[in-house]
């Protein structure tokens, strides 16, 4: 088996385990409890949506799992090992376009691969091309980032996150800045990619419909301090469409749940 084939082989996804994770921030001199004793188990290859209004600590939780922030109490286990810092096994996709404008589309996908030992230049390019093809951008490899549309940029970001072949994908509201049509396409794409290259995915969102469309489970968070308020199983067949009646039904249920808990204004329904 060539080095490239080996690199492109699917790696088994990793289970995530959050044990009593708490996180405080200093805000204007006073301590703010952002996450309060959050525990959660995510199975290998599961797609879990973290749903909650802004300020409920869901992005902080994602950063803790990524290893970008240290919890003040508790710990995160990835595949049984405690998370001590960022790792190529857990790639992050941000809401803002975090692509590097001084590199073209292919160059951005290559960035993470260049940091991976044991790959020569030609194999890196081959691997990067594979992932650009996977997100449907094979003919845009030389495009400067600013010439790509918002949706295409997030596709490049997805390819960049997938390229180092992580076991876990952490997505922080990756589609929230996109228009509705582009977003619906990306829901389909993400589910298709998840079929081909199974990852454990933690997907942060404030959009109820989105979480019902994508998640195997929806973890509803409540703010001040950030806690898990409820966990909803989504037992719908895939691929799902945001307009499916089943998705709408789950979204209605979750919205009612949020209202009952007086969790303010997570975006209910589809946009």
């Amino acid at each position, binding site marked *: 088996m060539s080095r490239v084939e080996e690199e492109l082989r699917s790696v088994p996804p990793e289970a995530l385990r959050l044990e009593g994770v708490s996180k405080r921030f200093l805000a204007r001199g006073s301590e703010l409890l952002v996450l309060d004793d959050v525990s959660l188990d995510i199975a290998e290859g599961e797609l879990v949506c973290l749903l909650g209004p802004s300020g409920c600590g869901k992005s902080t939780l994602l950063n803790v799992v990524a290893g*970008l922030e240290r919890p003040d109490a508790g710990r995160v286990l990835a595949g049984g090992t405690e998370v001590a810092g*960022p790792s190529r096994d857990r790639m992050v996709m941000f809401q803002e376009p975090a692509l590097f*404008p001084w590199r073209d589309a292919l160059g951005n996908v290559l960035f993470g691969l260049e*940091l991976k030992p044991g790959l020569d230049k030609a194999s890196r390019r081959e691997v990067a091309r594979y992932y650009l093809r996977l997100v449907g951008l094979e003919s845009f490899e030389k495009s400067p980032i600013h010439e790509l549309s918002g949706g295409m940029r997030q596709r490049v970001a997805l390819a960049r996150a997938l390229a180092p072949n992580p076991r876990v994908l952490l997505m922080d509201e990756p589609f929230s800045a996109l228009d509705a049509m582009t977003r619906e396409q990306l829901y389909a794409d993400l589910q298709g990619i998840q079929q081909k290259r199974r990852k454990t995915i933690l997907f942060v969102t404030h959009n109820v419909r989105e979480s019902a469309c994508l998640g195997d489970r929806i973890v509803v968070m409540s703010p001040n301090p950030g806690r898990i308020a409820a966990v909803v199983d989504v037992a719908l067949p895939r691929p799902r469409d945001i307009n499916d009646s089943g998705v709408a039904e789950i979204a209605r249920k979750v919205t009612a749940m949020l209202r009952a808990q007086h969790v303010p204004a997570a975006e209910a329904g589809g946009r």
Partner: protein
Amino acid sequence: MKRWLVAGAVFGALLAVWQLGDSCRWWSSVLLPSPASIVQYLVAALADGTLLSATLVTGQRLLVGYAIGVVAGIPLGLLMSRSRLLQDTLGTLALGLQTLPSVCWVPLALLWFGQTETAMAFVVVMGTLWAILLATADGVRNVPPIYVRAARTMGSQPLHTLVHVTLPASLPFVIGGMKQGWAFAWRSLMAAEIYVTVLTGFGLGHLLHYGRELHAMEQVIGVMAVIVTIGLLVDRVVFSPVERALHRRWGTARS
């Protein structure tokens, strides 16, 4: 193309009026020599080699001082952006010294290094360094933090991040600083050359200075024209294309 023709025509007309004024004796040729006499001087100075050798001497001094300024300024700027203490000390000093016309360094430079090339280089470095240092630090501070976070998640270590993320991300600022530094270097050197005679080489500044001593205003204006032309050429040939390429790539082009 049409814009160039129009601009050329305007300059041509100005020169014609100037020449006409001289021919009609509207002013004394001693105070303002005619374009023809300036061209005559330039042709003669080119033919006997003085102009070329002076340009080479000045160019060499400029490049040496400028190179030192760039090579020292960029790392210092990077360091400064990382340290609160350096920011408060070196940063304040740099801001102050940037506003100091670098000809003010000439007396000290003479005392420390004598009438040498080192003194010349010192003055040029003092003119260049601060602008580049400040621009680099400014550029690094303006790098979106998300770039650094993204790089970290992909396994980039601090030094790798600095070289492969922070530096390229701040490049538009650094190039802006280098352009400004170039202009400052040029001014510093001219001031120093007019002020001080260094026996190891006569630069354009000296040529201008001697023109004044000899009341040869066509020489003074001729050398001024050469200085302006070189400055314009460097901007058009070196900095502008680089800046344009960067803006195109970064998507910040002003169309």
